[in-house]
């Protein structure tokens, strides 16, 4: 399975000293995200697989592949629940 994810086109991001503020113009809700969450959302401007995202986190932080993969899955679950992913891509 090589599912790819992309962020919702109506998201706008702000990088605030590493942390992120995310606006969803579709649901008109806003969120604060951690530094690694912001890294993932920035990457999701274009379609990415879980493996792509894991690689990004490992390049950026001193984490094992298992730790990075767990973080990616957890963050993608959160994004899914908050409708932050492009429904066209996340299939």
């Amino acid at each position, binding site marked *: 399975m090589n599912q790819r994810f992309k962020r919702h086109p*109506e998201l706008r991001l*702000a990088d605030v*000293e590493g942390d992120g*503020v995310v606006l969803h113009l579709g649901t*008109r809700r806003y969120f604060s995200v951690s530094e690694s969450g912001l890294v993932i959302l920035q990457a999701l401007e274009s379609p990415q697989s879980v493996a792509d995202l894991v690689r990004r986190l490992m390049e950026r932080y001193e984490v094992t592949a298992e730790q990075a993969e767990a973080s990616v899955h957890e963050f993608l679950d959160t994004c899914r629940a908050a409708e932050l992913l492009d429904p066209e891509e996340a299939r």
Partner: protein
Amino acid sequence: MTATGVRVRCADAGVRAALEAWIDGLRLDAPPGLTLEVSVMPVVSTELEDVVFEQPGVRFARLPEGQGLRLAWDEAAAAAEVPAAAMLASVWLSPAAVERLERCTRIFLMAVLVVLLRRIGWFHLHAATAIDPDGRGWLVAGNAEAGKSTTAALLAASGWRVGTDDAAFLERHGERVVVHTCHAPIALRKGGRRLLARAGGIALPARGKVGFWPEDLGGVWTPLVDPEIIIFTSVGDTHTAAEPLARSAAVAELVRWSAWVMLELHLAQRHLDVLTRLTHQARCYRVTLGSDLFARPNRLIELVT
């Protein structure tokens, strides 16, 4: 052309003169190029699809394909369209709206103007503005119950320069964000007037408030503030207290009080960048306003310096 650079076009000379007087009175330092094109029509439709935002009396809808916003005022049938790519707002007023032109301008046309000003990169924030005796610019942000107007009046009476008690317009100016304001009375409820021990003022019966010009309170009106301190206020009991805010929390607060950031896809990132930039230049605090402030207004300065 009005003094603010916002042109009013209207075939009805009486309506045009009234609207030009309103815009002149705001004393907004906007550059030329914006136009309000107003038509008085026998029938005005206030039907909207895809309503994305409402404020008391005014509804906002996105035009298809991100082509701008449509606004409607139901009280006396008025509507407007502000295209995304134009420096012009088309406004349609029913005869009933013309009959209530003062109310229409204050509630509906002000909202249209807020959208139009976005076209030149002026982004609205619910905040009072002031400059303290040492020349530092302040923003006091929060909702209608946050004590912004009472604080603005108190500061004006204490010799601060004050711009507005609510309608601030943020503009990116190089590496800084500056804040423009309208010249409008500071609107106080009964409680605020009692705390300030103020009588007189201009009756604002439709709002249940009384207005005071900053100048009438002993202050000086300032049309422009370069913020160094931002406080997000709430009203407490006796003691005024301040707590520093992390920048990400401050950006989230600014988004909350600058809700227009959510409305237009083509301007949202630029608006968000302005809010973020503001937290680079200003220290941000959450402040609980207490009654002790009335004895020592400059306690605000002590708390943040």
